[in-house]
C-alpha cells in the first residue's frame, strides 16, 4: 500500500499544475462549492486525489440535483461515476416528492453529458488498477509466511480437527452451525489432506501433513475482506480516498491479519458478513432499476451470503438483522410512494421474501442436509444427541439394531435423560457416604454405556419372573405402578424423605432392598408425556416421567457433579416440583426382552426436520452451557475496542467523532438550518452511508454485552470491520468539510491531501512497527527491556 500511495502521489503532483488554473476560473463562492464535487469523468486515472480539488464548477443539472439533498455524484469515475444517479432509490423518491414542481430537472440530473469514450476507458482502467492493487496488497500481507508456524496454533486444534472429521465422516458435535467447518474440510480434502492428523493440542508439529490447503483457504477468504470493504465504502461514499483509507486500515491491522492466517471460522464468517454487506449496498444502488438483471443478481447474492454467514456461526444473525432492517425501511418507502401501485409494492415484497427469506433458509437447511449426509459414522458427538438420533450413525450400537418396540414387564432396559449431556440412569455397588442422606446404594447418571446402566422393569406387587414362558406378555402402560430393579446389584430404585446430596430441596434417590424385595418406597408411577403412540411405552420415542408413589416427587437429574465419593457422576434426585423440565423426562434406549419380536430401529429413525430441530436445540444448549466460572478470566466486551493497535484507537475516536458530527448535523437539519449544498451532500453521505455502518457496528458489538456465555476477544472482529469502514467515510468527510471551510483553494487542497496521506502513512507505519506481532515474534517477551518489542509496549496492560 505504501508504494501504491507514493506512486499515486507522484502522479498527482505531475498532473496538478494543469489542473490548477482551471480551478481558478470561477469566483470564490463557486470555487468553494466545487471542492465537494471532485469527481469528474474526464479525470485521468490516478489524478483523483488532486484533480477533485481543482475541478471547475459542476454542470448545472447536477447542481440542481444536489440542492435537493442528493449525494454528491461519483468521484473521479467511481464504479458509477459516469452516470451519476441517486444513490438509493429511496433518496430519489424522496427527492422527487420533496421538490414537487421542480421534478422536470430530474432527467437532467440523471443523464449528464457523457464523457469522451477514451477517457472513460482510461478511467475504468484506473479504477480496476486501484482495485487490483488493493487486492494484491491484501493477498500479499495475508499469504506472507503463511506456513509459519509449522505447528498447531490456538483454535486450529478445534477447527482443524473438525475439518478432519468431515474427511473421515465421523460424527461430532460443535456449538456452531456446520458450514464453516465443512468448507475447511472441503479445502483440506481438495488440497490433498487425508484427515489423519490428530490435531491434539496447540503446539503439535504438522510434520508431513498437508495443512497449507486449509490455511490457504482461510487466508484467501480473509484477503477478500479488504477489497470487499473497499468496494462497500466506495459505493456508500463515492469517494476513492475514503475507500482507500478503509482498505489501508484493514490491510494493516495486525489483528485482522493474524485472524486470517490460521484455520479458524472467523475469516469465513467475516467473508460472508462483508459479502452480504457489499451485495446489499450494491443492490441498494440498483434500486432505481427494480427487477433488472443486476438488481436480481445482487438481491439473491445478498440472500446467499446471509445463509453463508448464519451457516458459519450464529453471529451471522446480526448481519441478517441489518439486512432485514434495511429491507423493511426500503419497503416502507416504496409503500409510501403513491406513484407505485399496491401490486407493484406486492411484487417488491414477494421478491424480497423469495431472495432474502426463502433462498437463505433453503441454503441453510441444505448445509445441514449435507452435514448429516457426510457425517454418517459414529464419533465423539454421539452422546450429545438423543437415542433416536444415534440410530442413524453407523458404528453406534443403536445403528441397524433391532429391539422390541413396546416395553413389557420383565424387559431389561437402559433409561436415558432427555436433557443433553446428562446420560443414563446408573447405579453401582457403592453406598452414599456417612452423613449424606441414608447410607444406601448410590444412584447417579452416567454418560457412558455400561452394564450398570441396566434396569429390569417389574410389577410393583408380584415378584414372579415375568420371563417365565407360562406367563403371557404384559405391556407396561401409561399410569402403571412399577418397580425398577438394578440388574447387576438386584436393588430397587428407591426414594424417601431425605434430602438429596447436593440439591437440598429435593429428595435422595437410592438403591434399596435385597434381591428385588424392598418396601413401598420402591414404587413408581410411569407416565408418558407424548401419548400419541397410545398408552403403551415405545422404545426411544416415548418421553416418560417416573413419579414416586409415596412422596409424589418426580425422578430427575439435577445435572450437578457429585464429589469424589460419587465418582464424579451426576446427581439423581427426586424433585417435589412437578413442573415438566427436561431434567425429569427420560426415554428408554436399550431394550432386551426375548419374548417380544424385534423390530428394526430404522422404523424409528427421526425425519429430517426432527434432526434439524434437535441439532439446533443441542447447539443452543451447548452455547448456553459455555458459562464462565467464578475466579476465571473472561474477556469483557468493554475491553475489546481498546486493543494494542493504533488503528483500533483511531476507530474508537472515529466513532465518537461520528456521533458528535452526526448529531450536530441532525439537530441543524431539524432546526431547519439551511445548509450549503456542498455540506448537505456530505452530510447525506455521513448520515446515510455512515449510519448503515454505525448500525452494523452496533449490531455486531452491543449484543455481546447481553450474552452470558464465555466471550473472547476475537468476537469483536466483525464489529471492527464496520468501524474501520466508518472511519474511512468519517475522515474523508471531515477533511472535505475542513477543506471547504478554508478560503484558498491551494490551502484547502493541501489540507485535504495532507490529511488523507498522513492517515494512510500513519496506518502503514503502525503496521511496520507492529508487524512482528502478526508474523510471529522472535526474541524475548516485551517485558524484557532488551527485546525489540519493548519500545512498543506503550501501555502496561499490553502483554506480548
Amino acid at each position, binding site marked *: 500500500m505504501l508504494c501504491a500511495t507514493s506512486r499515486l502521489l507522484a502522479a498527482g503532483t505531475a498532473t496538478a499544475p494543469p489542473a490548477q488554473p482551471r480551478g481558478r476560473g470561477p469566483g470564490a463562492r463557486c470555487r468553494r462549492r466545487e471542492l465537494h464535487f471532485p469527481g469528474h469523468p474526464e479525470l485521468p486515472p490516478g489524478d483523483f486525489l488532486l484533480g477533485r480539488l481543482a475541478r471547475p464548477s459542476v454542470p448545472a443539472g447536477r447542481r440542481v440535483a444536489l440542492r435537493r439533498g442528493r449525494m454528491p455524484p461519483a468521484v473521479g469515475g467511481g464504479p458509477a461515476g459516469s452516470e451519476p444517479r441517486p444513490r438509493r432509490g429511496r433518496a430519489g423518491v424522496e427527492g422527487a416528492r420533496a421538490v414537487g414542481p421542480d421534478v422536470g430537472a430530474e432527467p437532467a440530473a440523471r443523464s449528464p453529458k457523457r464523457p469522451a469514450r477514451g477517457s472513460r476507458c482510461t478511467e475504468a482502467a484506473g479504477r480496476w488498477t486501484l482495485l487490483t492493487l488493493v487486492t494484491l496488497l491484501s493477498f500479499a500481507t495475508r499469504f506472507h509466511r503463511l506456513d509459519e508456524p509449522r505447528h498447531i496454533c490456538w483454535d486450529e486444534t478445534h477447527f482443524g480437527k473438525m475439518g478432519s472429521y468431515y474427511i473421515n465422516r465421523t460424527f461430532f458435535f460443535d456449538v456452531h452451525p456446520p458450514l464453516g467447518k465443512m468448507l475447511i474440510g472441503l479445502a483440506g480434502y481438495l488440497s490433498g489432506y487425508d484427515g489423519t492428523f490428530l490435531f491434539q493440542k496447540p503446539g503439535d508439529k504438522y510434520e508431513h501433513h498437508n495443512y497449507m490447503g486449509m490455511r490457504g483457504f482461510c487466508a484467501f477468504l480473509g484477503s477478500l475482506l479488504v477489497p470487499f470493504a473497499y468496494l462497500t465504502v466506495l459505493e456508500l461514499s463515492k469517494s476513492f480516498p475514503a475507500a482507500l483509507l478503509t482498505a489501508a486500515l484493514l490491510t494493516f491491522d495486525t489483528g485482522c491479519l493474524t485472524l486470517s492466517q490460521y484455520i479458524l471460522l472467523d475469516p469465513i464468517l467475516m467473508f460472508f458478513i462483508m459479502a452480504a454487506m457489499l451485495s446489499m449496498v450494491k443492490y441498494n444502488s440498483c434500486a432505481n432499476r427494480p427487477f433488472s438483471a443486476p438488481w436480481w443478481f445482487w438481491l439473491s447474492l445478498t440472500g446467499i451470503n446471509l445463509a453463508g454467514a448464519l451457516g458459519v456461526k450464529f453471529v451471522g444473525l446480526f448481519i441478517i438483522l441489518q439486512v432485514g432492517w434495511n429491507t423493511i425501511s426500503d419497503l*416502507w418507502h416504496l*409503500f*409510501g410512494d*403513491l406513484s407505485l401501485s*399496491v401490486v407493484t409494492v406486492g411484487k417488491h415484497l414477494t421478491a424480497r421474501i423469495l431472495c432474502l427469506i426463502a433462498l437463505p433458509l433453503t441454503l441453510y437447511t441444505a448445509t445441514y442436509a449435507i452435514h448429516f449426509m457426510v457425517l454418517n459414522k459414529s464419533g465423539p458427538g454421539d452422546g450429545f444427541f438423543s437415542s433416536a438420533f444415534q440410530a442413524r450413525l453407523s458404528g453406534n450400537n443403536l445403528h441397524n439394531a433391532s429391539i422390541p418396540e413396546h416395553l413389557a414387564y420383565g424387559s431389561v432396559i437402559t433409561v436415558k435423560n432427555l436433557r443433553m449431556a446428562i446420560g443414563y440412569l446408573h447405579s453401582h455397588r457403592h453406598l452414599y457416604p456417612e452423613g449424606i442422606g441414608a447410607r444406601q446404594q448410590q444412584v447417579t447418571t452416567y454418560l457412558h454405556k455400561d452394564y450398570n446402566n441396566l434396569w429390569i422393569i417389574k410389577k410393583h406387587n408380584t415378584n414372579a419372573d415375568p420371563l417365565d414362558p407360562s406367563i403371557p406378555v404384559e405391556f407396561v402402560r401409561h399410569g402403571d405402578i412399577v418397580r425398577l430393579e438394578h440388574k447387576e446389584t438386584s436393588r430397587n430404585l428407591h426414594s424417601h424423605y431425605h434430602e438429596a446430596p447436593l440439591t437440598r*430441596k429435593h429428595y435422595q434417590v437410592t438403591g434399596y432392598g435385597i434381591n428385588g424385595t424392598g418396601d413401598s418406597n420402591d414404587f413408581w408411577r410411569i407416565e408418558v408425556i407424548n401419548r400419541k403412540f397410545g398408552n403403551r411405552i415405545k422404545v426411544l420415542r416415548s418421553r416418560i416421567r417416573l413419579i414416586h408413589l409415596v412422596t409424589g416427587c418426580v425422578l430427575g437429574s439435577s445435572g450437578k457433579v457429585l464429589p*469424589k465419593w460419587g465418582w464424579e457422576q451426576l446427581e439423581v434426585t427426586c*424433585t*417435589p*416440583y412437578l413442573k415438566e423440565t427436561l431434567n425429569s423426562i427420560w426415554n428408554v434406549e436399550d431394550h432386551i426382552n426375548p419374548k417380544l419380536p424385534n423390530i428394526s430401529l430404522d422404523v424409528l429413525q427421526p425425519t429430517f426436520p426432527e434432526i434439524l430441530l434437535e441439532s439446533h436445540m443441542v447447539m443452543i444448549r451447548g452455547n448456553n452451557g459455555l458459562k464462565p*466460572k*467464578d*475466579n*476465571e*478470566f473472561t*474477556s469483557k466486551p468493554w*475491553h475489546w475496542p481498546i486493543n494494542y493497535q493504533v488503528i483500533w484507537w483511531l476507530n474508537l475516536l472515529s466513532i465518537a467523532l461520528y456521533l458528535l458530527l452526526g448529531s450536530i448535523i441532525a*439537530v441543524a437539519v*431539524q*432546526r*431547519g438550518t439551511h445548509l450549503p449544498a456542498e455540506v448537505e451532500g456530505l452530510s447525506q453521505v455521513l448520515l446515510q452511508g455512515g449510519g448503515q455502518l454505525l448500525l452494523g457496528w452496533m449490531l455486531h458489538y452491543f449484543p455481546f454485552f*447481553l450474552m*452470558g456465555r464465555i466471550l473472547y476477544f476475537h468476537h469483536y472482529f466483525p464489529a471492527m470491520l464496520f468501524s474501520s469502514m466508518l472511519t474511512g467515510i468519517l475522515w474523508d468527510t471531515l477533511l472535505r468539510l475542513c477543506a471547504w471551510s478554508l478560503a484558498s483553494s491551494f490551502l484547502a487542497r493541501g489540507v485535504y491531501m495532507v490529511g488523507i496521506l498522513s492517515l494512510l502513512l500513519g496506518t502503514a507505519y503502525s503496521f511496520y512497527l507492529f508487524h512482528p506481532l502478526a508474523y510471529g515474534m522472535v526474541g524475548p517477551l516485551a*517485558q524484557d527491556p532488551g527485546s525489540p518489542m519493548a519500545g512498543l509496549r506503550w501501555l502496561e*496492560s499490553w*502483554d506480548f
Partner: protein
Amino acid sequence: MLGFLKRPVVVTADINLNVVALTAVGLLSRLWHLAYPRAVVFDEVYYGQYISFYMKRIFFLDGSGPPFGHMLLALGGYLGGFDGNFLWNRIGAEYSSNVPVWSLRLLPALTGAFSIPMAYQILLELGFSHCAAMGAALLMLIENALITQSRLMLLESVLIFFNLLAVLSYLKFSNSQKHRPFSLSWWFWLMLTGVACSCAVGVKYMGIFTYLLVLAVASVHAWHLIGDQTLSNVCVLCHLLARAAALLVIPTLMYLLFFYVHLILVYRSGPHDQIMSSAFQASLEGGLARITQGQPLEVAYGSQVTLKNVFGKPVPCWLHSHQSTYPMIYENGRGSSHQQQVTCYPFKDVNNWWIVKDPGRHQLVVNNPPRPVRHGDVVQLVHGMTTRFLNTHDVAAPLSPHSQEVSCYVDYNISMPSQNLWRLDIVNRESDTEVWKTILSEVRLVHVNTSAVLKLSGAHLPDWGFQQLEVVGEKLSRGYHESMVWNVEEHRYGKSQEQKERELELHSPAQMDVSRNLSFMARFLELQWRMLTAKSDDSEHKYSSSPLDWVTLDTSIAYWLHPRTSAQIHLLGNIVIWASASLAMVVYVLLFFWYLLRRRRSICDIPEETKCCRCIPTLLEASSGKCKDQAGIAVTPGYSWLRWVLAGALCAGGWAVNYLPFFMMEKTLFLYHYLPALTFQILLLPVVLQHVSDHLCRSQLLRSLFSALVVAWYSCACHVFNTLRPLTYGDKSLSPSELKALRWKDSWDILIRKH
C-alpha cells in the same frame, strides 16, 4: 407592594367527585381488615427480615432491589413503634404482639388504593372520556391480584404507584407545555416526573424500564420541539436543559440519596458483612471495626498481617497455612512437592497470620521508626506459626493443573530450591511510590522468579486439605481479576524476635487506637456493585413460573393458609380482566398497524389532530398554529391519531417494557412480577373500548349495543371478583367442594385440606 389588598382573596375549589369516590372505594377495598392474617404471609418473611434490620440499624445486603422500597416498609414499622424483635423464619408464623402489622401493611395498601384514582387521571390526561377513565379505575378496583398484593408487606403495589405517578405527571407536564411553559405547574409536574421515576427505580430495579419509556417519549417530544422553528434557539435550549435537569440529574441525585440515607440508617455490623470488602466492614460499627480499630495504617517490614482475598468467591477467606503437607501423590496419580499446604480459609484463625520480611535482613520485628513497604518492593512472607516462607514453583497445583502450586517451603528436598521472593503490586495505587496500607490497599503478589500471581482458584481441596480453598500461582497473568487481589485486614507491628514469644503475640488481639472512614461514594459504589453481582443461589421454587404462564394466568401462588380452617390467601387474578386486557392489546396492535399502513398510502381513518387543544399532547403538532388558547373549554374530544399513538406508546409500551425483559432474566420468577405490566394493560383496555365504540361502531344502534355488551362484560368481571374474593382476602373458610369448584384451571394450586 400591597397590591394583593386591592383584590379579594378568592379560593376556587374544583373537586372532581369521581376522584373522591374512587379514592374512597379504593381505600375501602385495600384497607378493609388490613391486619387480618396476623401471621407471616408469603414474601413478608423475606421483606420482614430487612425491616427488622432497619429497626436494629444492622447493615444488610439485598441484591433484589435498591433500598428505597425496604426503607418505605421500614418507615411503617418505625411509625408503628416496631422494635425489630421478630424472627422471620417461616411463612404462616403468628406475629407476636410487638409487631405492628397494621402500620407495616399500611403503606403498600395506601399506594395500592391511590393507584385507582391515578388510573382515572391518566386516561383523562390522555384525552379520553370520563367514562373510559372511570372504566379503567373500576377495573383496577376489582382486580384480585392487585388487591392481594397491595394488602401485604410487599413492594409491587408501591412500584406500580410510582410507575403510574411518573406517567401521570409526565402527561400533565406535556399537556401544560403548549400554554404555560415554565409556569409553576409546568415545573412542578416536570420535577415530579423525575422524582417518581427515581422512586420507581429505587423500589425495584424493574422500575428502570418505565423510566426508560418515559425518557423515550420525552425525547421524541423534545425532538419535535427542536424542529419547532417558531421557538428561538435560546428558548429551545432552555426547554432541553430543564428536561435534562429534571429527567436525568434529579433521578441520579435521588438514587444516590436513597443509598445515602440507607447507609446512614444501617451503620452497625451484621450477618452480611462478610460479603463486603475489609474497608467497608471497617466503616461499620462493631464487627471488624472493633478489631481493626487502631491498627497501624502503613505496612512495614516486620508487620504481622492477615491477607484477605478481595474477590471472596465462593466464600470470603484469608490466606492460610498449616503444618500439613501436600500429599506425595494425588488420587489421579500426579505428584506434588510434598511441602506445607497453603490454602484460603474462611474463618479467623491464628494460622492466618503472616509476617512481611525484608529479603535482605533476618529480623522479623519492626524497626523504630518503621520502614514502610512500597509498591514494587520485593518481600518475603513468613507464616507466623510455622516460620516457613510463602513459596511457589513449577509444580502443578492440586486441583488447577494449569497453575503453579503454592506452598510454604520445606527444605528437606534440596533438589527444589526455595523461590520465595514476591514483588508487591498495589493495584489501586495513585503513585508508583505508594505505601502498602492496611485495608485500603489492594495488592497483587507477583512471584519474582516465575511472574506467577498469587490467586484464589475457587476450588475446594479434598479431605487432605480439610475442604479449605485452593490457592495457586496463576502463570497466565493476562488481565486483571479480583481473585488475584488481596488486602491486609488485621495488622500489627511485630515486636518479638523469638518464635515462642511471637506465637503468644499472634494469639493476642491486635491493639487499637484510630478508626478510618470510607467516603460515601466509595461505599455506595461498592455496595451497588455487590448488589448487582450478588447471585441468588436457588433457582427453584414450588410456585415459580415462567413469563409465558403469566399472560394466560396459568399459574398461581398460595400465600397463606389458616392453621386450622381452609381459609387461605391465594394470588389469583381476575381472569376476565386478564383475558380481555390481553385481547385489547392484540386489537390495539392490529388496528395500529392497519391504520399505519393505510396512512402510508395517504388514507387517514383517524384525523391527524383534534379541535380540542387541551386534551391532546400539544407538543406534537405545535407548528400547526391553528389552536389558540382554549384552555378550560370542555369540548367533546374528537379522535386524534396522535392521541391514539401516545396512548398506545404509554400503555402498550408500558406493558411491553415491564413484561418482555423477564424473558432475558435468569432469576426465579413469580406471578406477581407481571402485575406492573398488567396495570398498563388494564389502562389500555378502556382506550380500545372507547375507540371501538366511537370509531368503529358507525350507527347509533351499534353503539348502544356495544355499550350494553360492555356493561354485561363488566358485571361478569365483578362476578368473578366476588367469587374469588375469599381467596383474595382470606377471610372466609370455604368447604373443599367449593374450593374444588374454584379450581378453574388445573394449574391453579388451591390448597384443599384433607379431613
